[in-house]
């Protein structure tokens, strides 16, 4: 998973780290591509393009953090793996600490 290159916010304030967004989306259960995109838009306000989504899916699958389930019609659902859940938890915890520290600094000004 890419790190600082991806951990960026768009100018409108939406969070944009496609692999992390995909992991977060799959944390609530298996989904196929369209469902992930809709869920991510609801979760973060970020509208991933199809190329970006499948770039993230391919890399997450390569890392063993998500895995495919049997196809439904022609749609391919994915689910998060235990190691993916651990990575997601670690990354979100780091982000949480970072956000808290950043907000404290803002409040102290």
């Amino acid at each position: 998973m890419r790190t600082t290159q991806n951990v960026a916010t768009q100018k409108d304030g939406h969070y944009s780290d496609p692999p992390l967004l995909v992991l977060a989306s799959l944390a609530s259960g298996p989904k196929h591509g369209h469902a992930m995109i809709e869920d991510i838009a609801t979760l973060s306000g970020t509208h991933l393009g199809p190329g970006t989504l499948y770039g993230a899916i391919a890399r997450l699958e390569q890392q063993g953090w998500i895995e495919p389930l049997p196809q439904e019609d022609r749609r391919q659902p994915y689910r998060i793996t235990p190691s993916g859940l651990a990575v997601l938890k670690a990354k979100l915890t780091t982000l949480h600490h970072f956000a808290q520290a950043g907000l404290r600094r803002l409040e102290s000004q």
Partner: protein
Amino acid sequence: MSPTLTRLLIRLYPRPWRNRYAAEFAALLETWPSTPRTTLNIISSALHERISPTQGGPMTPSPITLGAITRKPSAYLPIALSLLALTVVLTAVTLNGGPVREADEGSAAHIWQILMALQAPILLIFAIKWLHRAPRRAAQVLALQATAVAANLAAVFFLT
């Protein structure tokens, strides 16, 4: 998105990726509105996949790709220094209005020498670090670095 455009866009991806993801990606794109932004998104993702492939399919251990290795400072710094040195030579030649024939080396020559000398330890570090880990990729980068050095030597030989 039309099936024709979908097929064309998917063909931009490398074959291993297509073998793994083409069917499901096509199913997703068929229900996707066709916009220039979507097309650009797929083109840029396909290019990224070609530069830094995931290989698709049953995933192999993470390969050291050419894209990944060239992002290492020890890979790109010598090339950047070579290009800078070449720029120094060409600038000196341009300012002198032709080949420079000086008995006494000027400041441009000293800068060129420093830039070329700086590359040696970095090249050594790169070779020690990467040749055994990714021989093919490291050799490709070394070939690129050698080409940049050769371009410099040719410029100095023929233009000064």
